[in-house]
């Protein structure tokens, strides 16, 4: 029998799935006491900031630091050509594998942090020193639009990147499944269109910063990072710092939906901080100016789509030819029966900003959105029916998935059917959906609804080490984790408590600790939980057995349960009890303390290890869907989002409150991005014009109608309990949904995102 942890179910009455349990981080966050990286202060700490480029593309030809260095309180100035940093590279990308210079003597985009890092006794002194730098720049040709960078004869840019782009192409991705041309031939009709996605950014809550402190040859760092192991790995590989001599700590993370995990330039900051701290022989906090946070999303692009479809809505083939960082049809491949898919994306070098990836998954959920929306619109069908009709996986229909479920011990359920059932009922889809452009409202606006669905995507297994001890009656998880706002430590505690029979409050898991190599949750966040849940379950079960063994073990005065075997005992509510006589109980605390050597601090229980490897191929069974209602003011171009319903099939819900929180926040971000969020650049200089939260329209809580969140559980994940994670997927799902709703409201296509009033008025022919 292969390892099938999805057949596990949480013990009845356990903390898994319970509402109302106090969050691990609730009190500290609600009271403002929770620490984020920028809050960290260590004794003797200095501050560091970097020069920001005023140009989109320029080379530093001269730099005079004399005045800055003379400013009292300035401790060090690191130039790009200093031997301590010169030539050092960083930033492995998940696509392309290019590496950028940590500290370059040239800039690739406006407000690029380049050239110089200043260390001083205060942030203010850093700013004053930076103002005193005398920098001479030689401006270069710049490209904001990818199409311009790719035009024949364009000037090569990003030439310092290694390997350098060829013809300003950073990477080309091509995927082929089936025979797309044959699929088009077998279709009743062909639908072709182009959709666009404007540049946007993360607008994450927390700015980037890093604290580095050397203690002799040991390096302690506080990082703002979803995946601290990446920092550790890169410092070890590129700077030769032994991993065993690094202590990488993470605090709470400020809501970036995974972006910082991949954000390569953060690794540059970490390296520079380590170098600076070593040079000045004091701890250094390197602060990135949050008002100029530059990294953007990975969905920007121009996507040329061709769809072949039968008249009943069965999609036979889809192709995408795009100028974009990523391809848009991967989730359609993993979550539909569409047999023939082709996608090609050319990732162009540009001078907007580096390394785009935030609210990850948006590219592919937008692909789903556009394909289903256009097919439904072209054929006059309900888009939810189109999605269900094409439901499947990897080009196969749901019957094939059912066979997979039977063969591998999964429940035989069709996630999308259940998601749609819950969502459509909650939203009132039957009453609200109508043919496009047919429902004027009494207020003069047009009523519309939009819909999107994709697979859920976090359900992998990671064989990370998990370790736990029991000291003074409390289970202590030994690990480093990164809390992205899901209350990750609390969620781990739920699982461990459930499997051991402990009370939730008797299991502790903390962020802000390194604990050596026990990276049981890296990356942090929902994917961290699902990646490691098998390990948590198996090791918790081991720990439980160790406790039960102690309960029957002989000792001075005799065993706690004389004459009993482990099999005759169990644990509930942190009490060991005799199954045949539940009133015969001893606390875990008294049993473990009795075997603790030298008082109560030594744990007699030490469980560690990883779960067996899941060997079957991972399939994406669980789906999610969003429904949005809008009122379109056709005179002003305004799309007013009046209601959103979202349903996530979590596989198994570990923490329903946290899941709802992720849904709510994600929808809010996603719909805002769909309607409003867009970076604007000055065409004359390449300067980012709306680089603050006045000009860049992140929505407040007053800008969206009610968001109605629902969860279901079909146990379809390839992890313990069949879990899927939830987080960024909710934002991605809704990030182009106003286009579909606008079409339903007006009967006019708007495939240019975000659907700002300007675009709406253009689409309607008003301007």
């Amino acid at each position, binding site marked *: 029998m292969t390892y099938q942890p999805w057949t596990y179910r949480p013990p009845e009455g356990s903390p898994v799935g319970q509402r109302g349990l106090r969050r691990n981080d609730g009190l500290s966050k609600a009271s403002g006491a929770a620490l984020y990286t920028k809050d960290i202060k260590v004794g003797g700490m200095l501050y560091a900031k970097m020069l920001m480029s005023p140009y989109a593309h320029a080379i530093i030809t001269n730099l005079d630091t004399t005045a800055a260095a003379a400013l009292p309180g300035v401790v060090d100035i690191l130039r790009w050509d200093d031997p301590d940093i010169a030539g050092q590279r960083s930033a492995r990308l998940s696509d392309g594998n290019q590496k950028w210079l940590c500290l370059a003597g040239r800039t690739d985009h406006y407000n690029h942090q380049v050239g110089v890092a200043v260390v001083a006794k205060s942030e203010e002194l850093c*700013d004053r020193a930076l103002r005193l730098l005398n920098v001479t720049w030689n401006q270069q040709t710049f490209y904001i639009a990818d199409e311009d960078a790719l035009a024949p004869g364009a000037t090569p840019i990003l030439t310092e990147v290694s390997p350098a782009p060829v013809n300003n192409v950073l990477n080309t991705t091509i995927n082929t499944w089936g025979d797309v041309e044959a699929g088009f031939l077998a279709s009743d009709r062909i639908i072709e269109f182009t959709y666009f996605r*404007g540049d946007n950014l993360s607008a994450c809550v927390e700015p980037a910063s890093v604290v580095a402190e050397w203690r002799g040859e040991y390096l302690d760092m506080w990082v703002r990072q979803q995946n601290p192991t990446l920092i550790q790995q890169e410092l070890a590989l590129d700077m030769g710092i032994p991993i065993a001599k690094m202590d990488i700590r993470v605090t709470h993370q400020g809501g970036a939906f995974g972006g910082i995990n991949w954000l390569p330039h953060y690794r540059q900051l970490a390296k520079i901080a380590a170098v600076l701290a070593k040079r000045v022989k004091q701890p250094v906090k390197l602060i990135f100016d949050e008002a100029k946070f530059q990294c953007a999303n990975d969905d920007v692009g121009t996507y040329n789509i061709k769809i072949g479809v039968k008249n009943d809505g069965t999609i036979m083939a889809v192709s995408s030819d795009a100028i974009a960082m990523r391809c848009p049809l991967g989730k359609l491949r993993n979550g539909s029966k569409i047999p023939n898919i082709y996608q090609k994306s050319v990732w162009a070098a540009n001078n907007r900003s580096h390394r785009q990836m935030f609210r990850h998954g948006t590219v592919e959920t937008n692909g789903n959105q556009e394909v289903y929306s256009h097919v439904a619109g072209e054929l006059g069908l309900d888009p939810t029916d189109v999605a269900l009709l094409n439901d499947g996986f990897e080009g196969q229909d749901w019957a094939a998935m059912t066979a997979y479920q039977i063969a591998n011990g999964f429940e035989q359920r069709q996630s999308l059917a259940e998601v749609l059932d819950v969502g459509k009922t909650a939203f009132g889809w039957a009453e609200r959906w109508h043919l496009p452009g047919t429902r004027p409202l009494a207020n003069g606006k047009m009523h519309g609804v939009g819909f999107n669905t994709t697979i859920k995507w976090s359900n992998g297994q990671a064989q990370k080490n998990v370790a736990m001890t029991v000291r003074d009656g409390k289970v202590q998880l030994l690990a480093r984790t990164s809390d992205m706002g899901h209350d990750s430590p609390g969620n781990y505690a739920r699982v461990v408590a459930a499997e051991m029979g402990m009370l939730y409050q008797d299991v502790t898991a903390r962020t802000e600790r390194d604990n050596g190599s026990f990276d049981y949750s890296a990356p942090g966040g929902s994917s961290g939980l699902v990646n490691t849940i098998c390990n948590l379950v198996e090791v918790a079960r081991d720990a439980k057995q160790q406790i039960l063994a102690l309960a029957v073990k002989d000792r001075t005065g005799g065993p706690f349960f004389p004459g009993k075997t482990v099999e005759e005992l169990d644990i509930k509510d942190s009490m060991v009890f005799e199954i045949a006589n539940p009133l015969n109980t001893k606390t875990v605390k008294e049993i473990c303390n009795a075997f603790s050597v030298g008082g109560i601090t030594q744990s007699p229980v030490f469980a560690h290890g990883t779960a067996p490897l899941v060997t079957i191929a991972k399939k994406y069974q669980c789906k999610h869907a969003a429904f949005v209602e809008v009122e379109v003011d056709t005179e*002003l171009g305004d799309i007013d989002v009046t209601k959103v319903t979202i349903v996530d099939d979590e596989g198994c819900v570990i923490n329903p409150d946290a899941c709802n929180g992720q849904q709510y926040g994600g929808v809010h971000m996603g719909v805002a991005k769909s309607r409003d969020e867009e970076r604007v650049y000055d065409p*004359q200089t390449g300067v980012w014009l709306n680089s603050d939260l006045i000009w860049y329209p992140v929505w*407040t809580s007053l800008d969206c109608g009610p968001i109605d969140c629902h969860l279901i559980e079909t146990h379809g994940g390839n992890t313990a309990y069949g879990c899927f994670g939830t987080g960024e997927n909710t934002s991605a799902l809704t990030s182009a949904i106003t286009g579909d709703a606008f079409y339903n409201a007006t009967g006019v296509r708007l495939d240019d995102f975000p659907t700002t009033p300007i675009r709406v008025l253009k689409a309607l022919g*008003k301007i």
Partner: protein
Amino acid sequence: MKTIKAYSQHVNATTVAEATAALAKGTAMACAGGTDLLALLRFEVLPADKYPQGIVNLKTIPGLDYIKEESGFLKVGALTRLEDIAQSAVVQAKWAALSQAASRAASPHVRAMGTIGGNICQYIRCWYFRAADNRFNCKRKGGVCWARLGDNRFHSIFGSMQGCWAVNPSDIAPALVALNATIVTSSRQIAAESFWAVAGLASTVLNAGEIVTEVRVPVPATGTKSAFLKYAYRKSIDFPIVNVAAAISASDARICLNAVYNIPYRATAAENLVRGQPITPELAEAAGQAVIANATLLEGSGTHPGNNSNPGNAWKIQVAKILVKRTILACQ
């Protein structure tokens, strides 16, 4: 975010005279709620030689925050917070446009700090003028207007004054013009419609050392109805893309737009159409059309359909037309 650049003098004024004396040299800047000033300073918007050497805190002057109806006028102290105006039953009763304007200005948090005096004195809104680190030496700073050939989607639709295409963003200003208000300063009284100007960096006709002390709005004639409408990306917080205030009686009509020109734009053509006429949808439509008859289109220069670079200001002309129509209809 950068720390604020050091300045050498901070005066907590206790009287209007003390404040005006401290401001008279023109090297210090006045601070009431601070919601505009602190952003200017923190982002280092101003040229280095215009960065203030001192800040004169007006909030410490007692007795300048009041709302009262007296002698045929609504009198609002310059330090009265926008939220207090929005919530005032006195204002709501007779000066609906002002109440609505105050309630739509900024966000709840900013309204709780921002004052009426500060709102009408705020600097222009232009992303070239406001770019951090004084990135663009724009017309108002002695250079050229970058918006004219740059991205001007939020800029003037009625041309430029002195070569500047920026707009005045005040929500309160058009209401005051429509309601025929008077701005009382430390040295004179100025009709609201004459209060704003292109004056170097500044957006008002105030002289060095002159501060606003009161806003005085006459009690409207019997039968007058007033209204204020604002259009912005976000309903909760944004500066206006266009806002309109109107006060219409059986015999008179005053209509003012803002965020469409360097200064609040009195829509006299529309007023002439509406004055003395019963308000109908057709009349309102015609008035909207009349307003934009003089609009100056800035063509977009975007070369790629998807990236929306520099779409021009045509959409604001459309928005202005519709908002004028709706504001007039709201005065029915």
